[in-house]
């Protein structure tokens, strides 16, 4: 499929007339695998916000990401009777590929997240890796060098360093060729997640997808083709997706990334799902009043709204929460703090400030339940939180 993808990418660049923000239309084509189909794609501009809910313990990475900025990406989509295809294009000044001989380089990469099919589709899963009972499927593509990874095949005979094989000349050349033939050429992974630390790789090929990324002038273009329906997702009408990109030069990996909020892709010609659109709608509250309410209710006693607030590990940081969170999620978190618990750090990492307790096998948030506030105040707080987001680069 690589050949097809390369030609897809070149066509995609030509068709990059950006439409209005956050409205992505998947154009129906006969076959998404047909390179020519991308000439029909409509590209939309989306914003990818830095993920700052958690600050991890890598000192240099934290320094490199002290004042993270949001990024713009262009997203186009196609679908046919069976598959959906996405193309994501984003600026990145350097091509970063994790080397096979370095402990301190990191790869550029991108991921597309879909909401898992559940009985109750709304509200959508938590944007960061899903939540209990609301799984997400994440397709990840990283730019890597050819990597020989025999562990998956339990193949130990070819793990030997070539210098230790004890053979020379043609025999050594044959050994090298055998090792090279076993190399992984593509770092593509699919995961299912129900919240931080639950992400599990799908290895049984029950998700048939193909992702690829190519570096062009000053940026990457990534594509993903996956079925509209499999045992994990069932996509029709309005498809919620989220897109993330990693920047290797900023030591990006794991949560150190830029991600979009849930975005709606309308499958052209299919009936739209009003519930998804409703969930993604803006809040009608008054942000200025919301700011006062946040101060009055002491949110910054645990959450960082400004850098001078509580220590970063006490609760998820709210500094960029407006960029990637939906209004529905913010509203829910205020009135039902345990509906989605950002499980955050390992509980040993900050054992005196647990974000949750486990009661009867369920995570119960240590946050106060703010359902006692009146509806208008909650809307105002949500409106204010939606304004908390990093500037675009």
């Amino acid at each position: 499929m690589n050949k097809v993808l390369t030609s897809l990418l070149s066509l995609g660049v030509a068709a990059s007339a950006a439409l209005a923000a956050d409205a992505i239309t998947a154009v129906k084509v006969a076959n998404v695998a047909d390179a020519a189909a991308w000439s029909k794609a409509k590209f939309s501009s989306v914003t990818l916000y830095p993920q700052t809910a958690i600050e991890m313990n890598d000192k240099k990475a934290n320094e490199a990401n002290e004042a993270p900025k949001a990024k713009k990406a262009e997203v186009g989509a196609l679908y046919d009777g069976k598959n959906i295809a996405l193309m994501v294009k984003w600026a990145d000044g350097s091509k970063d590929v994790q080397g096979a001989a370095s402990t301190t380089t990191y790869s550029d990469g991108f991921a597309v997240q879909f909401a898992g099919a559940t009985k109750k589709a709304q509200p959508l899963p938590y944007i960061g890796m899903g939540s209990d009972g609301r799984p997400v499927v994440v397709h990840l593509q990283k730019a890597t060098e050819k990597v020989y990874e025999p562990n998956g095949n339990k193949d130990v005979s070819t793990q030997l360093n070539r210098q230790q094989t004890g053979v020379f000349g043609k025999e050594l050349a044959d050994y090298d060729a055998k090792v090279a033939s076993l190399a992984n050429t593509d770092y593509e992974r699919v995961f299912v997640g129900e919240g931080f630390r639950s992400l599990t790789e799908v290895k049984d090929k029950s998700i048939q997808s193909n992702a690829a990324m190519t570096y062009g002038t000053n940026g990457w273009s990534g594509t993903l083709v996956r079925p509209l329906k499999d045992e994990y997702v069932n996509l029709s009408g309005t498809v919620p997706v989220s897109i993330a990109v990693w920047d290797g030069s900023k030591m990006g990996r794991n949560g150190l990334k830029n991600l979009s909020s849930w975005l709606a892709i309308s499958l052209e010609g299919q009936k739209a799902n009003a519930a998804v659109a409703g969930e993604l709608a803006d809040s009608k509250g008054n942000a200025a009043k919301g700011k006062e309410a946040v101060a009055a209710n002491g949110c910054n006693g645990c959450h960082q709204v400004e850098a001078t607030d509580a220590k970063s590990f006490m609760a998820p940081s709210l500094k960029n929460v407006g960029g990637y969170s939906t209004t529905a999620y913010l509203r829910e978190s205020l009135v039902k703090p345990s509906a989605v618990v950002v499980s955050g750090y390992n509980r040993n990492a900050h054992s005196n400030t647990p974000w949750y307790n486990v009661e009867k096998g369920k995570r119960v948030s240590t946050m106060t339940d703010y359902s006692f506030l009146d509806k208008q105040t909650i809307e105002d707080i949500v409106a204010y939180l939606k304004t908390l987001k990093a500037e675009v680069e």
Partner: protein
Amino acid sequence: MSKRQLAMVMDLNKCIGCQTCTVACKTQWTNRNGREYMYWNNVETYPGTGYPKNWMELGGGFDAAGDLQPGVIPNLEADYGVPWDYNYESLMGGMSDSNHFHPHVSPTWGPNWDEDQGAGAFPQDNYFFYLPRICNHCTNPGCLSACPRDAIFKREEDGVVLVDLDRCQGYRYCIAGCPYKKIYFNPKISKSEKCILCFPRIEQGLPPACAQQCVGRIRFVGFLDDEESQVYKLVHKYKVALGLRSDYGTQPNVYYVPPTESPAKFDAEGKIIEGSTRLPVEELEKLFGPAVHDAIATLKAEMKKRKETGVSELMDLLIAYQHSDMFRLDNNYYQQVAKENKRNPLAPVDTRYVAGKFTKAGGHH
């Protein structure tokens, strides 16, 4: 905390820095497939830069409040050293090679780059000792706490800390979190790897390769709750074996008998300064904490007792007459665990290391 805890004691008075342990480990585990630069076991000269370079200054571990501290991930070239090899192939093949025998990279750094240098001025007051280091299989591991994927686990059966290679995605926060920098990133498979305390050997009643091969017989291995084990006696009964940099808050389970004997200093004329000692006790206090003073006092008292009376259980123990006394590994215990879990007693008792902690057959979760 695990149900039981395996521990190792290393007697620094007896380490001769021969690196047999290093080689035993390397040939068994780390001479291939992206692990070439790793030393799950290393022996460094103290005072010195250590391995990786200046590991004590790279952060990680916990502060007094129990919060994980940020750390730095060492660089292969600058901090570990790129392992070099030689042009055997062209030489063996009779090919012309103008440089003759030469390494394939220009070596700029490596483990033990400063071996035997130590501190002080030769010959007046120079000193050093050897510090062998493996993973401490901590009770509160920094690596485990740092992992955002729960890919690191501590075995219930014996407290061995392992990386679930199926869950590990190579984020490397564990390396920043470990204050000992005893967990490593394998760039070839993009996963973290570390000392596994030779658990496949342990489960069969054999000590870890580093301990078995130790020429100086400095390493004792056993369960900390086994009062007959020498590790119990050294750590709990006589309290002469102490954790390395316990101030990092990870509760390490490798213990050290501090070096007690060092020669006297020389004056400007090259004469012995009576009563002086080259090894500053402050250095030992930095490594092993304030309890080092009592440990040294006990060791000296027992040494004196042995000299005078010929009897000292502690001295006999440290002489390490029999491997069978030094290693109490309780093969029956593992057999019992295997039986309880209805497993083949020859297979590892805990298959998570090979099979993945959360990944069920087929890859669903």
